[in-house]
């Protein structure tokens, strides 16, 4: 049955001259001659510039005139014009996935001056494309209804920023917060750097209050804004946290400050304070970005609330990037806060005070404030499991791409905002939240359907043995194991067509619809001749 279908194919083969680019670099006529007699080839022509308006019109007409079922275009890189020629196919009434391009320009004409070699290779590439294309099956892009509602997990500044930007009459936003109050880490600070202004409390008022009973609801996207935790300095003996009196963390100091009085355990005000940076930095292996500025902010609190107190900062590297942080630091230094660069710090008790050994030198203070590293929150593992977003560097959730995908993830529709994906400032957190909202506003438009990728993978029910190798290699959470049937299936909406599953499947049950074994085999047989 299959054989007969193959023999019905009518392939149109067109070689674009691309001006002098291809025409001068290889002997197009010889290429045409070499492929003319091949099985299923109905017509072979050359054309000056296929991507021009005339060229596209010509091609569409050729499809109709010859009743072509498949198309091969030898021209430039598919990156350049695959979309163009796929559109031409649709113009001509042909399914756009029944077309294959052979790259004669970037991969042949532009890399060798040897016309003979170029022609030989062009013949192979064209034959390979022709051999392959008749095994292409028509694929259809699907349109699915989308649910424009959004779930935001975490009601800190990240969650709230995203929720606010997303909310509109035709979209519901569900904001879920595990604590009783909204605001997260930022609400536990009196002021924020660099301008030392009070936190904008009006956010709390305008966001909806948490529901009290468990509810089930459907959403079209999820924004994960579950924040981060602080490293426990108690794990490191050199800081004496929990053992030496008056050694506190930055958050404990913020709490004291909010309550109204920064004091030692005996109630007196500290006359001298040491602020230790980079607590836990070596153990975590990364720099937590905000602590230097938090330390500077705290020294401002101290100078403001306890004028006359001496404040010394002990740091390894001063991390103050950006257009205003350095001015913030210099102002603070000029106000009398000392900054000491030191590799290692060891605290010990000395006469009811605290002795700071920094690289062998000694300093004595009444109180020490530790700036601990920011680490992944405990909830991160659970969220990772639940949503299929992998944990990565530092055990934080992994964004899709460090540079060009900071808020998206490999799971379509799940976004990250804030410190859940790594330490960052409030400013960058808000950017990310708004970015997640922006991406959602752009893709999940109420009433508009979503188009899915047509070139996805498929798993044959009869060939699948349920070994689940595909599950372990899918980065997009697009494969599910069906317990009742003992097989794996591909979710075509989530599938991005990367082909990992097809490559990994030990029994050939998983295939990529535009890179089937037969298609690849035929292409390789020609190329490797």
């Amino acid at each position, binding site marked *: 049955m299959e*054989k007969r279908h193959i023999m019905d194919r009518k392939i149109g083969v067109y070689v674009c001259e691309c001006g002098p680019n291809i025409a001068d670099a290889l002997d197009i006529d010889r290429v045409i001659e070499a492929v003319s007699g*091949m099985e299923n080839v109905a017509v072979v022509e050359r054309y000056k510039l296929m991507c021009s308006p005339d060229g596209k019109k010509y091609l569409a007409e050729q499809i109709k005139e010859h009743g072509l079922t498949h198309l091969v275009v030898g021209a430039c890189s598919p990156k350049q014009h695959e979309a163009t020629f796929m559109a031409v196919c649709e113009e001509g009434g042909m399914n756009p996935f029944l077309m294959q391009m052979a790259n004669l320009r970037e991969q042949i004409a532009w890399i060798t001056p040897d016309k003979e070699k170029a022609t030989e290779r062009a013949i192979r590439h064209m034959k390979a494309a022709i051999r392959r294309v008749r095994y292409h099956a028509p694929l259809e892009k699907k349109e699915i209804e989308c649910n424009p509602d959004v779930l935001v997990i975490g009601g800190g500044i990240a969650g709230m920023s995203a929720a606010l930007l997303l909310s509109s009459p035709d979209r519901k936003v569900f904001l879920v917060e595990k604590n009783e109050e909204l605001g997260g880490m930022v609400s536990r600070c009196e002021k924020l750097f660099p301008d030392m202004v009070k936190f904008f409390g009006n956010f709390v008022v305008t966001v909806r209050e948490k529901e009290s009973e468990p509810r089930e609801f459907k959403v079209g996207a999820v924004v994960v804004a579950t924040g981060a935790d602080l490293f426990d300095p108690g794990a490191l003996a050199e800081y004496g946290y929990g053992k030496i009196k008056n050694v506190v963390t930055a958050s404990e100091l913020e709490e004291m400050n909010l309550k109204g009085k920064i004091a030692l355990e005996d109630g007196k005000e500290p006359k001298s304070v040491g602020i230790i940076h980079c607590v836990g930095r070596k153990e975590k292996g990364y720099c937590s970005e905000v602590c230097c500025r938090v330390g500077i902010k705290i020294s401002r609190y101290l100078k403001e609330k306890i004028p006359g107190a001496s404040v010394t900062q002990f740091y390894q590297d001063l991390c103050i990037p950006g257009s205003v942080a350095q001015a913030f630091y210099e102002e603070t230094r000029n106000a009398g806060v000392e900054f000491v660069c030191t590799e290692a710090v060891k605290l010990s008790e000395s006469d009811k005070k605290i002795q700071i050994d920094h690289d062998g030198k000694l300093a004595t203070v009444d109180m020490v404030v530790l700036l601990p590293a920011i680490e992944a929150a405990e909830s991160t593992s659970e969220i990772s499991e639940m949503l299929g977003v992998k944990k990565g560097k530092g055990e934080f959730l992994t964004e899709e791409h460090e540079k060009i995908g900071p808020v998206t993830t490999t799971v379509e529709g799940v976004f990250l905002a804030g410190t859940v994906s790594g330490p960052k400032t409030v400013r960058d957190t808000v950017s990310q939240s708004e970015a997640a909202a922006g991406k959602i506003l752009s893709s999940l438009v109420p009433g508009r359907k979503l188009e899915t990728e047509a070139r996805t993978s498929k798993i044959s029910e009869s060939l699948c043995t349920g070994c689940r190798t595909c599950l372990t290699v899918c980065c997009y959470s697009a494969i599910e194991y069906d317990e009742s049937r003992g097989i794996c299936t591909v979710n075509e909406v989530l599938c991005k067509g990367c082909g990992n599953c097809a490559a990994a499947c030990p*029994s050939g049950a998983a295939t990529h619809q535009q890179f089937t074994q037969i298609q690849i085999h035929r292409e390789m047989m020609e190329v490797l001749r």
Partner: protein
Amino acid sequence: MKEGYVIKATEGASKAVAELLKSLLEKNIFEAVLVPVRTNEGYNYVLTENTDLLNKAEIMPPVMSVQGGKVLQALTRHGKSGKIAAVMRMCEIRAAVELSKLEQTDLENVFFISVDCNGVIPLSDYLEDPSNAGKKFRPLCKICTSFSVVGDEEVEAVDIHAATMGVDKGQVLLIPMSPDGEETLEKLGIDEKQDTGNWVKEIEKLRKQRIAAREKALAEIKETVKTLNGLLEVFSRCIECHNCRSVCPICYCRLCFSDKETFRETGGEYLDRAQAQGVMKCTDELLQFHLGRMSHMSLSCVSCGMCEDACPVDIPVGQIFSVVAEQSQAIFDYVPGKSSDEAQPLRTFELDELTEVEDK
């Protein structure tokens, strides 16, 4: 040094282990046992709770008509069995473990009793004259180094090992290899224990001999197949019956790549190829089948030799596959069947994997 529980074997090791199995059934420690028994036709694995039938049990049948791994696949592919005790050779247990990594066996309720194996006789030799048993062996058995569970050859899945080599005649040493095995032996109330020193010595001595023999034999085979021409020659009499694949415990695909349409080209394509190459052998799929099968399963190959036994034209296919398996497994430091926690190479994905490769 481990200690073994001593059981009397005055009527031979098989009878002794059969008695052990009967006790296990009588005490309801297991619901059934999986063990080879002697039949009119030869030897067959049976799944039974019938203690009488166990009188015919043979723990080291001289022939391997079916690989134990395949038996367990048939029994547990669609879900766990009840609690059963299975008596099998090392290569069969390892094959079963490999299959469990592919979700083709479920060994959760399988209690393994392994045996010291001195090899099996090729089926054809057995059919010719059954008394050849114990005298003639499969080529791969002759060079097998994984016939017991000493040192490097320990396999996590084994619960009890029935040691017979280097052990006093009239005795079998039951060595607990897992906490489950220990617990079970305790339940049987066997008092006498003995240290396993002599057994270890005997196994190591035999292993040393086998290692040398294996090196030599595989080097010889490698010589014959290291070139394309060599391969073509060795496989020239292959009749493409695919017996080797059918009996292999690791080959479990519902539709083998070689039976798919992938490699079935059209007349025009074949003629084109013949013209371009000058000549094309018909059929052209022979080497593709063997090399393809090799690349698909050699990482899991346990060198049991079923394939060679099943080959009707006596191609040393088991030895050839063993040569390749040894090398490909070494690249990944992978020992098939040793531990069910050790994932098969090329079947896992870790975000940080690429950096590891880079650094290498």
